[in-house]
């Protein structure tokens, strides 16, 4: 493998505490090294910003609901198609790009790792087929557990060990990465057209509450010692007043301590917190509760969050929160897709337009930014758009611009039709914080990597780590003339390396790299009861045999990378 030395760049690396020093980064055999040999190829990074490859903690980029979005939205391909070119296969789609385009677009922005945030276990093959066809970036997928019949039945009887054994089995069977929870209990209730809007609403038939599911899954997660924590999309998403449900959910983490060998400190990751920070009683008095949520998270170190920034685009919403998507189609009367998945989960897909002329959308925009600006520890708050739910991931450079420049925020606020309402219902106008490049590296690299349990591998530039490096055409020593220059610089990297291979040069793809699928291989104690239960449920209630469910052929995952966990 070739050697490289990235010379004289302004390096930002929270892992080593480097805050913009002019330094060289050396690469050898796919890893960062202290010193490169004399034959190393020199990349001149003078006047440029150098960071580790960025890590996406939560996006919907592969699998059945994403593809349903592609299938039923031909309009998303209008003006967004790019022809086959050199290394690149053709691409298409704005909010739900094709797999190839997904890989290229992330790489061009300096992202080298991304997590698919909701994998229906029954569809894991589909998720992995799409991951295989997404070039360059390393990917993992989170199977969903919050409405799973096994989990609900075990937790009803307070059987945490059995829950953990089942989780371990499912992670192995689906080659999954983490325990994801979406609208716990509510999505099962949706099987009957119902929902659970608070953490205490009983789940029909199963005689359990969302609170019990959440606590039980935190316990199981720590019992196993998984790299990532329980990753939750709480109940009551997106409704005025939902912040109270969010606080109730966050409080369930209190008293738990992280147990793992991966350096992770949190026991709960709250995703797309923007959607969960709403006050008011209706869309008329809708207001921000970003302060209430961030105050709580700031005080409780065992929680991490991501933002879910609204980017003011036409997009495609998709989530395993089936009842929410039905509710949404009732609001906007656009087309509705839904798929309920036997014994496991559901998903809905609805197109959505975040119009700057609608006050609710503008307030949502402000809330996402407020969260990022109000969080005191950037290592515990990560930038996401919950792609494509609050906006496409391709808008990250724009979100970065808004976070790094009060001038850019002001310009956007002034452009809103209901500017006064935005200012009265949020505190975005009074926040003068500007995120620094070091904080940006925390929020997009070191932080998410640590939360995912990947801090030994990625998110930093310490010798020994994977050589995932992004070089931006952005000179931190020069004052920013126009905030749009920030967006431009973060849109197309000068150079990107993935595991030591240069994949981007001057914003163009020059290699498809050796992308890997990250998954968590948990060795757990033998548990004959759980194995019997699994066997029985397959015979009686699944529509697929257990043997076919488990046999995930190697060709689905051509380049696997397993994080080994020994929970025996």
């Amino acid at each position: 493998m070739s050697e490289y030395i990235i010379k004289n760049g302004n390096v930002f690396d929270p892992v080593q505490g480097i805050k913009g020093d002019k330094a060289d980064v050396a690469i050898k055999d796919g890893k960062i090294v202290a010193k490169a040999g004399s034959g190393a190829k020199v990349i001149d990074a003078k006047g440029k910003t150098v960071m580790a490859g960025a890590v996406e903690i939560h996006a919907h980029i592969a699998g059945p609901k994403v593809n349903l979005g592609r299938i039923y939205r031909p309009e998303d391909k209008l003006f967004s198609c790019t022809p086959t070119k050199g290394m690149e296969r053709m691409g298409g789609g704005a909010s739900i790009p094709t797999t190839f385009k997904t890989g290229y677009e992330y790489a061009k922005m300096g992202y080298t790792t991304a997590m698919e945030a909701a994998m229906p276990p029954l569809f894991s093959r589909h998720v992995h087929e799409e991951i295989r066809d997404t070039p360059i970036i390393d990917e993992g997928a989170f199977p969903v557990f919050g409405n799973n019949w096994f989990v609900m039945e075990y937790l009803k009887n307070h059987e945490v060990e059995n829950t953990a054994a089942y989780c371990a089995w499912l992670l192995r069977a689906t080659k999954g990465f983490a325990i994801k929870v979406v609208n716990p209990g509510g999505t099962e209730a949706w099987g009957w057209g119902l929902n659970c809007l608070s953490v205490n609403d009983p789940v029909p038939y199963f005689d359990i509450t969302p609170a019990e599911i959440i606590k039980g899954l935190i316990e199981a997660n720590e019992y196993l010692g998984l790299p990532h924590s329980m990753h939750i999309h709480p109940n009551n998403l997106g409704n005025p007043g939902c912040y109270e449900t969010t606080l109730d959910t966050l409080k369930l983490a209190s008293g738990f301590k992280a147990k793992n060998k991966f350096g992770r400190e949190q026991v709960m990751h709250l995703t797309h917190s923007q959607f969960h920070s709403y006050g008011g009683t209706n869309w008329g008095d809708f207001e921000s509760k970003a302060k209430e949520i961030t105050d709580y998270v700031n005080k409780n170190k065992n929680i991490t969050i991501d933002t879910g920034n609204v980017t003011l685009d036409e997009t495609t919403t998709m989530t395993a929160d089936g009842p929410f998507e039905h509710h949404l189609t009732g609001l906007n009367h656009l087309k509705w897709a839904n798929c309920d998945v036997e014994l496991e989960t559901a998903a809905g897909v609805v197109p959505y337009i975040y119009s700057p002329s609608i006050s609710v959308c503008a307030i949502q925009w402000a809330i996402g930014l407020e969260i990022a600006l109000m969080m005191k520890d950037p290592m515990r708050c990560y930038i996401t758009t919950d792609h494509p739910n609050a906006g496409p991931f391709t808008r990250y450079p724009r979100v970065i611009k808004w976070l790094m420049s009060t001038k850019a925020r002001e310009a956007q606020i002034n452009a809103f039709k209901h500017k006064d309402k935005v200012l009265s219902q949020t505190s975005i106008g009074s926040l003068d914080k500007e995120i620094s490049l070091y904080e940006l590296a925390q929020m997009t690299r070191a932080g998410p990597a640590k939360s995912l349990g990947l801090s030994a591998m990625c998110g930093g530039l310490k010798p020994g780590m994977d050589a995932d490096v992004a070089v931006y055409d952005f000179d931190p020593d020069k004052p920013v003339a126009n905030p749009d220059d920030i967006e431009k610089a973060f849109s197309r990297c000068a150079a990107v390396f993935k595991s030591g291979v240069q994949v981007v040069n001057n914003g163009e793809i020059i290699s498809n790299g050796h992308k890997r699928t990250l998954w968590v291989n948990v060795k757990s104690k033998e548990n004959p009861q759980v194995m019997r239960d699994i066997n029985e449920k397959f015979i009686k209630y699944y529509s697929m045999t257990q043997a076919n469910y488990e046999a995930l052929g190697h060709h689905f995952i051509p380049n696997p990378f397993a994080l080994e966990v020994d929970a025996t």
Partner: protein
Amino acid sequence: MTKTITDVICPFCGTLCDDLEVVVSDDGKKLLEVYNACVIGTEKFLHSQSKDRVTRPRLHQPDGTWKEISYDEAAEYTAQMLAKAKKPLMYGWSSTNCEAQSVGNEIAEISRACCDNTAAVCHGTTLIAVQDIGLPTCTLGEVKNRADRIIFWGCNPAHAHPRHMSRYSIFPRGFFTGKGQMSRKMIVVDPRVTDTAKMADVHLQIEQGRDYELLNALRVALNNEWLPDSVAGIPKEKIREAAEMMKSGRFGIIFFGMGVTQSLSKNHNIDEAIALTVHLNEFTKYSIMPMRGHYNVTGSGEVFAWQFGFPYSIDLSRGFARYNPGDTSSIDLLVRGEIDAMFTIGSDPGAHFPISAVKPIANMPSVCIDPHQTPTSGVSKLHVPVSFNGVETGGNCYRMDNVPIDCRKVVEPPEGMLSDEQFLIKVRDRLKQLKGAA
């Protein structure tokens, strides 16, 4: 000693049964028995054993005879054909695995082909309707565990998907449907008295081609509004009774087939059927699902979608995907004479396309990749027989509810035969050389 292989997947219809047991000879070469499959499925397995099977590529000679050639020569012919063509059509894909489809799509991209699958003549209209209005659906296990109202509209599973009713929809006892058939009401909408219709609690014997009207009348009945005395040949009392039966269920599903996708009004029928489903969700829980025919037509749509962004009828002639069914769809392209090379795989347009679309195939460079001899192989210049996917080679497939299931190999193919994927890889690699592609 024989060997029994369990959990075998049936590569015939969209039901994609995965509980078959197959007995093979000790050397793994001969398939002896097939258990659990329906008649059609069993036949598919046993057919792979037929003595008169073609095992080598054959080139049509000017005098009408066939000349046997090697796979390398066949790949050369195919690659040359695609490289020279201005606008080749690559059609089929519904009876092969996703791995082969994926290689095929790469070939299509390099040769700037039009690509299409058999949805062109079955559920293409469904896909258009889904693009209009969406699709509330579920997996078949949800039907088994929850559904107490089953509607079959314009389909006849008793014959076309023989194990559908026993595995998923009518007979099985699921978690919330412990009484099986007894806990379900069944409505069939069909102008014919089919074997499925004979089993129904309510058979709405609709006038042919009046699906849209009846679907609309059911929606009117759901809201208890005024109806004429009869709609689509069904008296209003019976419509109200059916609507009441649908509405009173806890979980219902509409399965629909080509009787409604290919009758008058086409996609508009499906628009209305989906609208009815959405409407029913105001009262209780409802889903709708197309009864997909080929065992992997669904998979082809999925792979097309994640690689190109559209599920069928894709035109790559400008280097990126364009989609405009009626313009970029196979039959239209053929009838308009826009195509100058025809590549068929895993389907039989010769048997299913109108004759005006089949004739042009006989008059242009053409390849048919198919383990069987079919009307299409008969009119093609080159016939490339391949091993049977799901019998002699494995690979991923998608059931009618989009659930992916990995097919299993149970016996060895006849000596020296290639699979679809292997042959396509040869073509792709050669095509890349010819085109100087990266």
